[in-house]
């Protein structure tokens, strides 16, 4: 942990991440729900407010510090509340797929034999599809929506963790203290949970935290393709898909609508960057091969 704080790159990552956490927590104060919805108890704060009719974006102004994007959606509001969406998707997908992967991977390795063989071939099949394309198939079949995106991502993400923990458990399984526990008549479930998992789970958790960034990228990619969050939901990927229509600007000013792509793009890049900076430092610390 000390090494993490001493490295300027990972330090930068931690600071950026902290800013995002603060933005997510204080979203209702940073970008309050506009007054026009105050009397509507059914109003969902994740719905980005629209100011006016027509589609043409509007340059940043005092009321709308980052401007209005396609469909007059407020960019600043969308980015602030989109931070919450990003954390929500990232944390749920990582958490659930990690849990599923650990349970299936460790039991498979512990039981071993034919069972293990079958489970691993199963994992192989799941892993032989490109992650993004698999997610596209699932969201096409199930329909649009954030919950479906989360489901699709979990469905094709757990396999990586399962494979990782399986390898670790297979190693630890042979250790003498496991043998000792077995000889002492400790139940299988207890051996797995109390003796094996604590010694194998750590690398998986690190791997999982490093994948947060890529999960958020995939989720926003689905939104970019129009398969993710419903229209008008605060989501960075969707804001970029809005920007697509205006990317070429006006004939005399090709950069006329720069703000529609730059702000949401910056939000995604910084978010992912912060996770990757931390993960990269972690990897160097954990990887003893490089420390020659």
């Amino acid at each position: 942990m000390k090494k993490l704080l001493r490295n300027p790159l990972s330090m930068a990552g931690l600071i950026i991440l902290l800013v995002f956490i603060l933005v997510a927590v204080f979203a209702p104060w940073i970008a309050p729900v506009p007054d026009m919805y105050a009397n509507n108890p059914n109003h969902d704060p994740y719905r980005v407010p629209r100011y006016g009719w027509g589609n043409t974006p509007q340059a940043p102004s005092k009321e709308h510090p980052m401007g209005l994007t396609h469909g007059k959606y407020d960019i600043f509001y969308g980015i602030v509340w989109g931070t919450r969406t990003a954390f929500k998707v990232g944390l749920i997908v990582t958490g659930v797929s990690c849990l599923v992967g650990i349970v299936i991977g460790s039991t498979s390795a512990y039981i071993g034999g034919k069972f293990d063989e079958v489970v691993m071939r199963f994992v192989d099949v799941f892993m032989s599809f490109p992650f993004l394309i698999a997610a596209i198939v699932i969201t096409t079949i199930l329909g649009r929506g954030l919950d479906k995106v989360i489901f699709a991502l979990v469905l094709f993400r757990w396999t990586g963790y399962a494979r990782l923990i399986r390898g670790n458990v297979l190693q630890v399984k042979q250790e003498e203290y496991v043998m000792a526990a077995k000889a002492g008549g400790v139940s299988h479930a207890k051996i797995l949970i109390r003796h094996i998992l604590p010694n194998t789970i750590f690398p998986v958790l690190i791997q999982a935290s490093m994948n947060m960034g890529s999960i958020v990228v995939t989720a926003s990619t689905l939104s970019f393709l129009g398969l993710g969050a419903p229209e008008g939901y605060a989501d960075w990927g969707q804001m970029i898909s809005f920007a697509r229509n205006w990317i070429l600007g006006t004939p005399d000013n090709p950069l006329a609508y720069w703000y529609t792509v730059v702000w949401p793009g910056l939000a995604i890049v910084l978010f992912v960057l912060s996770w990757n900076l931390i993960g990269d430092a972690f990897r160097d610390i954990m990887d003893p091969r490089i420390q020659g």
Partner: protein
Amino acid sequence: MLTFIARRLLFLPVVLIGVTLLIFVAMSLLSPYQLVSTYIKSPEELKNQSLDDLVRKYGLDQPVHVRYINWVKNLLKGDLGYSVSANMHVAEAIAKRFPATLELALFAIIPVVLGGIWLGTISAKHYNKPLDHFSRVFAIVGWSLPDFVFGLIVLMIFYGVFGWFPPGRLSMWADSIVLTGDFVRYTGMNTVDALLNKRLDIFWDAVRHLIAPVITLSYLWWAYLLRITRSSMLEVMNKDYVRTARAKGLTERVVMNRHVRRNALIPVATVSGSMVLGLLGGVVIVETVFDYKGIGLLTATGAQQLDYTLVLGTTLFYGLLLVLVNLVVDVLYAIIDPRVRLE
């Protein structure tokens, strides 16, 4: 060597059954009425027939195992159903669009591999020096840039501002020539066909349209390859035989190129399989951003219009492609690293 390949080939049907089963399970989430579209052979069939007739005709009311066997039988005949969004048979659409994607992949693979390995070597050579830190930041930023964001920025700058690299596959004038009978389609790849037809102007036009997507794909993959090459080079540099080579008085260049890099490339070869996997996903995005009419854009537009027939068909195609690519990668790997064959 031959036994190694034979063993791999034996494993092939198992993977194929797995891949088809997975897609079939995904399909069975749809109701029989929705599924009819994945079976019919032309829109004509919808005339004079009720949906219930069609469901019965294609056996969609049968038990699961019967349906699976029937479906696989159809697949073996190359029948993937009729796509509403592409307005043609799925197999036909894939055959039509695949050359474009192949062309893009072929143009991208050389700068990706050479550039990535070169950057990784430089980074490892200057380990912990400014150049290394610089390339690391370059890699992390590249790794953090989602392809659709980077692609849009490339489009905005190189097309919007400078007007150099337009989206699409060909300019209007070139497209109209390609569509005439005088221009013979040999491969479906514009650059190759243009050269075979001795039309240099069309060749340049096609290349001009390829540059922006290739830049986008390359930058993102450089980041990945740089990282792997770097850490694998650093590992090898600590090996005894490298010290021996230095002690023999070999020049630094020979040590680096002959002793270090050759061995460091083995892990790089291992990831080439997963690179192809990622490249296929990346192609969907890049083709969407640059309106490049390949198989990725076909899948994306199909998905947007909820054309599951098309999406399932193309996915199956990706799956088969990957199985084959992985087989080739494994064989190449066994050639590079003889230790693998002994396992």
